[in-house]
């Protein structure tokens, strides 16, 4: 019965709405853009239910559509995004180097041994911390970081999409990775909630 099937397909799509919205928010850092991206993803998916075959892969398929919608939205708002993305104007002063390193170039606090975190990487709690650390980055930094780590764009593509110079991109990624490391060390690996 085609009618019944389409209703259940729609319900399945809506069930993934919150999951999609989480990624859209993290990447776009703008509530209305995020909602647009998710709505357009669901509309696009509804328009071609035949192109997804395996029910268990529905989420993966939707995330794939969402990634394209997110890039469309960045392009539609290119000017705003470009202004916010410049590390000199977007989040000047956000520089961990001075805290992480001493004047002589040594670590102020030697990096800890994170052990062999096979178990950490199986833990849903670990990924909640990881997401919280990403969310805490300044918006422009978070966008660049997730373009690299979630959209998996090349450095060249990110520069093009955001109107960034390669230097600005590398400065931003440097700060983002240092911040993520600090945040994970502070909130996960330093505390090891699973251990006594």
């Amino acid at each position, binding site marked *: 019965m085609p009618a019944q099937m389409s209703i259940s397909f729609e319900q399945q799509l809506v069930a993934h709405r919150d999951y999609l919205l989480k990624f859209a928010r993290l990447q776009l850092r703008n509530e209305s853009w995020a909602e647009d991206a998710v709505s357009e993803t669901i509309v696009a998916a509804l328009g071609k239910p035949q192109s997804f075959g395996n029910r*268990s892969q529905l*989420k*993966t398929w939707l995330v794939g559509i969402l990634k394209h919608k997110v890039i469309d939205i960045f392009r539609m708002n290119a000017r705003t995004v470009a202004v916010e993305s410049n590390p000199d104007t977007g989040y000047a002063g956000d520089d961990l*180097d001075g805290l*992480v*390193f001493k004047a*002589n*170039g*040594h*670590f102020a606090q*030697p*990096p*800890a*041994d*994170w052990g062999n*975190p096979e178990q*950490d*990487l*199986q833990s*849903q709690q*670990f*990924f909640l911390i*990881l*997401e919280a650390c990403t969310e805490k980055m300044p918006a422009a930094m978070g966008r660049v970081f997730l373009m*690299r*780590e*979630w959209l*998996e764009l*090349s*450095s060249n593509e990110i520069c093009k999409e955001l109107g960034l110079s*390669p230097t600005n*991109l*590398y400065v931003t*990624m*440097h700060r983002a*990775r*240092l911040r*993520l*490391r600090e945040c*994970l*060390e502070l909130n996960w690996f330093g505390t090891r909630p699973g251990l006594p």
Partner: protein
Amino acid sequence: MLFMPTCKEAAALLIANEDRVISLTDRTRMRLHLRACKTCPNFERQLLIMRNAMHQWRNYTEDAPQNRDETLESRAP
């Protein structure tokens, strides 16, 4: 002449290596430092763990735990 970089410089090179191809000279200086330094190998290992974690997170869905498997080699920039 290859001057021995500080931890700060070595760490910056290790981070840069996640996002772009660094020059052979810089790579050599970085390796020299890592061989001599007690603390920076931990930093290198942390970056690898973060890379694996992001990989895992990207593929993470509640209903299907993914395999995680990456090497120390740099990704394509």
